[in-house]
């Protein structure tokens, strides 16, 4: 139960932290669902070709970035509506992977488990945190890395500016749409990794239902976190637990209705928006396209 909670939290973390970057730069990137699925499919495909976990991860990341490239260029180069692009991409990836899954026999895909000595012996949580398929450990490095990228580099400052006031960012010489595109690419990379981890570390097999709305839970986690990285991480851990609990209840017939658990992440995210509406605020230009010359 702890182990599965941790695994799911890691998947959410990869998707949500990338989504967080994209949202800070002003895109409500709903194709994160498609990116996760593409990553999952890419990982299974990579394993099918080479049977090396790292190669599967690589292909998974590439697949995620590929989806991100389409999303980024259509919505922030050609200024097409980002929701249309996102929805269409989700449908496209779902259809394409399901279709290719019927054509190619992918088989099983599993990454090796790497147990960290000493740490894994900690009672209760040791095994859950430190005896996992190895790609999961990247999550520990991901959060500080993204924090550094967004809060300590010039690129991060510009990306945040673009998400708050694109007009001001534009007049100070920042290429607004380029920053947004790059932020989406970051999201594609991490979400692709997350999807790959979902297959390699958790399910060990590709199915077209493997992601099943988890990308949207990642979006809920970002909202839950009030668009802060810390909050997003907490959201991912909480939602990971909730999801693991939901799976456990379905198997073991506890007295909690799984319905409540399924709805929980979204209801919690809604309540956070309602309760902290005055303190928590989204990036000002979230989901607003930028075209120079328009106010």
């Amino acid at each position, binding site marked *: 139960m702890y182990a599965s909670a941790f695994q799911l939290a890691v998947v959410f973390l990869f998707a949500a932290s990338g989504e967080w970057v994209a949202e800070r730069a002003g895109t409500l990137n709903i194709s994160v669902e498609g990116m996760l699925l593409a990553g999952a499919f890419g990982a299974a495909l990579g394993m099918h070709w080479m049977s090396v976990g790292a190669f599967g991860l690589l292909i998974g990341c590439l697949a995620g970035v590929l989806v991100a490239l389409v999303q980024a260029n259509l919505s922030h180069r050609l200024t097409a509506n980002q929701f249309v692009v996102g*929805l269409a991409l989700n449908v496209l990836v779902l259809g394409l992977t399901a*279709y290719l899954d019927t054509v190619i026999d992918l088989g099983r895909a599993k990454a090796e488990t790497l147990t960290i000595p000493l740490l894994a012996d900690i009672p209760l949580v040791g095994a859950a945190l430190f005896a996992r398929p190895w790609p999961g450990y990247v999550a520990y490095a991901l959060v500080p890395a993204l924090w550094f990228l967004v809060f300590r580099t010039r690129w991060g400052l510009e990306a945040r500016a673009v998400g708050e006031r694109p007009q001001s960012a534009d007049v100070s010489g920042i290429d607004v749409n380029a920053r947004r595109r790059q932020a989406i690419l970051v999201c594609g990379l991490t979400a692709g990794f997350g999807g790959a981890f979902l297959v390699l570390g958790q399910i060990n097999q590709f199915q077209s239902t493997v992601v099943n709305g988890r990308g949207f839970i990642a979006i809920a986690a970002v*909202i839950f976190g009030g668009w802060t990285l810390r909050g997003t991480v907490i959201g991912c851990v909480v939602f990971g637990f909730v999801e693991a609990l939901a799976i456990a209840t379905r198997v073991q017939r506890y007295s909690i209705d799984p319905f409540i658990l399924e*709805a929980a992440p*979204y209801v919690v*995210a809604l309540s956070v928006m309602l309760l902290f509406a005055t303190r928590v605020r989204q990036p000002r230009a979230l989901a607003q396209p930028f075209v120079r*010359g328009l106010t």
Partner: protein
Amino acid sequence: MNDRLTVPALYVASIGGAIVLSALLVSVTGGSAFAVFDALVDGSLRSPGAWGLTVTTMAPLLLVATGAIAATRAGLVNIGQEGQLLVGACFGAYLAVRLPGPGPLVLVATLLFAAVGGGLWAGIAALLKAWRNVPEVLTTLILTFVSFPLLTFGLRRRSLIGDRDTTRVNHINSGEQIPFDTRLPDLRIAGNQIDSAAILAVTVAAVAIYVLERTRLGARIDVLGLNPRAAQRFGVPQRPVAAGVLVASGCFAGVAGAVLLTGGTAGDRLSFGYSGNYGWDGLLVALLARNRVLVAIPMAFVFAALRTGSSFLATTGVDRKMTDVVQALLVLALLLPAAIEYVRRARGGRQPVAADRPGLGRRLAPVGGEVV
């Protein structure tokens, strides 16, 4: 002259590209692209009764799209139609099997109650927006994912929408059958059964066109979407209009849910995943029609044709998931020309905002009224 040629050319090129890409995909994976195309046309238009089915399928899509268009024109981003539709269907299902009385009356009540359901679901988002200024993009999206488990919850309880007939096999997790006399009647034209929901949808669309293009309310909605500050100057009550339009768009989606239930092709009892992406597709129709209801009608027909056509794919040995791919590629292809044109105009220094709302000012401040 040049402009007039390039846009259609771009459309031809990008749609052609999407079709070629889909065909390539089918061929590479061992299918026959021509057989697939044939099957799609057979299933949606050519085979007996097919186009009637397509028109029937079009109805809920058009209803959803009409609501979405109204919302988008008011500058709102309602992307939760899938959930609003589902909640509407649940409300409708609850009433349809319980209300005593003559069938047609119950039917009307069902449709109205479904509208209330969809409106309520969108109303949550409207309330949050009006009260705490929470963006409706986020709330409508999230509420959609609350609605799915809500359906499960309801289906498990006989006091709600679960099947009360416990003697039936598979009664668990499924809704009660809608009585025959509370279903929308079918029209029979040349061997086609067309659900009267299609007439309802087209009528609703026509009314929406009139309201949006010809009335003061429509002008207020437009000006609110185009420039909220100008709307304020014109005395448009911003919050009530925005909230009203958001709720109305939810109502449209709710009615679409009831239409699925009482006459559509989605089956006569609720089950898991009942909304079947009708909400998402309707939203896509609206956005691809670039917020013109008149364009949404043929667009909804195309989407419906892909749906009905996909049921014929089995004969070709190609998985019907393929139609999802085709549909998504078509959506992306339909986006491209307008977007390219938009960027080209912006680069050329010409006004990128098309002044395509004739008579807006006149409708806002009618003759004799004060002109600001």
